[in-house]
């Protein structure tokens, strides 16, 4: 199976992105349009400013009762004539989908945008079996034609200019070149309409599920997910196991916040509730519905009190739209279907801490993501926790210490700070020693050896010959 993660290239890809002027413009644009607008939408909710905290409590309560919610959801869907499959990992999820496709003699598939299917590498697996897979979200369709990966959770082709899309369509769809978004959208509309009408199977993700009523819900503005879940005779939905709430009331609040967080909307254009296949004597709709509920490492997050909070996430991508790091390096650098702050936490937890270590070290801990999160997830706390586990090493996550010298240096520093006399003595001798190496006035411009990285893009102030404590003591008290 293809590995969906290429997180090792984080630093190289970031550097590449920063020097890409067109990408910088596109990222600045998406952040300027969606970032502030999202905040306005939150505060316009009838529940008032506290709604994000309220939603956090709802999600926390749902996650703490996840076993019950999943059972209730599965019972209802099964009772409605649907099939529910529980997949422990990516491989099981994919083979389940392949088995369904085989059973129904599926040759062509249309897909709604779904990050969890990217996570399990579904498209490649279907294509390997000779099934024709068409992504139908316009952005996702563009990157599928271009042979690329999504760079934003809800706007996957945000890194492409209209001219690039025009050239791509001229080349792949054989239309006359145009850079007009309306004409390009119309061209894709015509091609994809035929695909929708011909497809044997539709595959979607799941934005949220309601356990009490037994429905999964999907949202789109284009209507492609409705097409995908209405026209083919078989509908398969992929769902990360945490995407469930208990009641309709919970669902109402979270879906409003999802719409606000994702696109600064009151409500997404099309919201579909799917609880099973329709009876045979209904005029249309799929005759088979399969729900694949995926763990793939999520129960490990559930079991770790420090990372359980991550399962509250509803993948709206609001944190991408405010993150100063995402705003510079874009989505591809993260090497994961999940980019931005959410990606920096969730990717290490899915792909392995050491493998994705650069992601959590790359974020700034500025806290903008927490402020933008519709369910008030403390991403900075989890980033710090990941850094801690990576520094110390961690058995449950099979993490080995990132840098032994750094760990030694930090442990030494910790010892000195808790022994004041030794600390003062060390500072005193260091301030005398530095005078021998750095004779010049002003800050230190280049540290030696392994410390040089610190001064590559900043200077370091010299240690004062008189420590702050003694300056403070001799300071004149205002009378």
């Amino acid at each position, binding site marked *: 199976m293809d590995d969906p993660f290429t997180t090792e290239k984080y630093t190289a890809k970031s550097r590449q992105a920063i020097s890409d002027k067109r990408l910088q413009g596109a990222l600045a644009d998406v952040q300027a349009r969606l970032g502030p607008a999202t905040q306005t939408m939150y505060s316009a909710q009838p529940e008032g400013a506290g709604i994000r905290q309220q939603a956090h409590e709802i999600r926390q309560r749902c996650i703490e009762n996840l076993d019950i919610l999943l059972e209730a959801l599965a019972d209802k869907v099964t009772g409605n004539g649907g099939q529910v499959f529980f997949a*422990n990992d990516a491989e099981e999820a994919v083979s389940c989908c392949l088995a369904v496709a085989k059973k129904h003699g599926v040759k062509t598939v249309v897909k709604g945008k779904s990050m969890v299917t990217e996570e399990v590498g579904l498209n490649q697996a279907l294509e390997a079996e000779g099934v024709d897979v068409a992504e139908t979200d316009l952005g996702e369709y563009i990157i599928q034609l271009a042979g690329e990966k999504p760079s934003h959770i809800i706007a996957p082709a945000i890194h492409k200019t209209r001219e690039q899309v025009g050239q791509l369509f001229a080349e792949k769809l054989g239309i006359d070149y145009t850079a007009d978004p309306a004409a390009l959208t*119309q061209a*894709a509309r015509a091609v994809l309409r035929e695909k929708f009408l011909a497809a044997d199977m539709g595959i979607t993700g799941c934005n949220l599920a309601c356990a009490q009523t037994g429905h999964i819900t999907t949202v789109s503005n284009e209507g492609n997910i409705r097409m995908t879940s209405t026209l083919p005779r078989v509908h398969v939905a992929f769902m990360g196991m945490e995407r469930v709430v208990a009641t309709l*009331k919970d669902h109402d609040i979270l879906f409003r916040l999802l719409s606000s967080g994702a696109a600064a909307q009151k*409500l997404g254009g099309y919201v579909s509730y799917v609880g099973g296949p329709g*009876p045979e004597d209904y005029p249309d709709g799929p005759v088979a519905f399969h729900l694949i509920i995926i763990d793939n490492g999520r129960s490990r997050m559930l079991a770790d009190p420090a990372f359980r909070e991550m399962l509250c996430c509803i993948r709206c991508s609001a944190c991408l739209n405010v993150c100063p790091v995402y705003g510079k390096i874009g989505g591809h650098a993260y090497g994961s279907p999940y980019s931005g702050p959410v990606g920096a936490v969730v990717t290490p937890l899915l792909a392995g801490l050491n493998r994705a270590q650069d992601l959590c070290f790359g974020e700034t801990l500025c806290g903008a993501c927490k402020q933008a999160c519709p369910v008030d997830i403390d991403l900075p706390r989890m980033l710090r926790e990941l850094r801690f586990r990576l520094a110390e090493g961690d058995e449950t996550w099979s993490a080995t210490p990132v840098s032994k010298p750094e760990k030694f240096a930090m442990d030494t520093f910790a010892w000195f700070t808790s022994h004041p006399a030794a600390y003062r003595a060390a500072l005193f001798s260091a301030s005398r020693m530095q005078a021998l190496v750095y004779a010049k006035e002003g800050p230190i411009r280049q540290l030696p050896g392994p410390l040089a990285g610190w001064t590559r893009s900043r200077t370091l102030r010299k240690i004062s010959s008189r420590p702050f404590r003694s300056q403070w003591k001799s300071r004149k008290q205002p009378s």
Partner: protein
Amino acid sequence: MIQNHRASFINRVRQSLGPDIGPADVRRARIFPETSEKVSQNLLQAVQSRAPKERETLLAMLMDQAGPLHLHVTPVADPAEAAQQIAALVRQKNPEWGEKKSLIRWSHPLLDALDLESVLADQHIPVHTTAMDSQADLQGQRQLIRENTVASFMGITAADYCVADTATIVMKTHPHQGRAVSLVPSVHVAVITIDQILTNLTELYAVLDDEKNTPENGLTHHMVFISGPSKTADIELTMVHGAHGPKEMHIFVIRA
């Protein structure tokens, strides 16, 4: 079929939650409350006892919200006027795919009352429905309905509810009411009555919650909320209407 791991899957989730979570039945009772809250009861009462003047206020609110979403809301006096308005639209609009104009509509009492078949007779426009005869060949009927839906340039539906604050129509899936009618044709027209308008989503969910346990109007196997025509901003964040679904959407609100 490959093996399903439900029991072990749920068990692992339970184990991951830790030893202190408490018995499942106690937690189940707590997370799925039996009785609806007093707030919901009050909301329901407000919906049921709404005065005509308040309904007009909601209609005005719906029209305000619909504008920016490119959703056209037109109040009409009665079903006959709704039918005339639809006839005018049919005359005005050209089909997006192919030359011939035809319509597809739900089989629904409100739409039956419009008598579109007669109103459109002088334009020679065929009006198909999604009515099913459960005694006849189901496959064949579904096939024909699909062909008619794909061939139609306009789809006409009713709705269960309409939410003013978000300019949303709510449609549960009922027999004889095709889902694709509001999706595949280039123009979607929904006909509703003024008493179907609710204030906001909170009110809607109170109503849905109240109905969820009654078999005849429970949530059914499928329900959709539609707030305006299909749209996308996937190319340089430029808004374009008509990505996959209808390019145009109209709601006619019957006042009487």
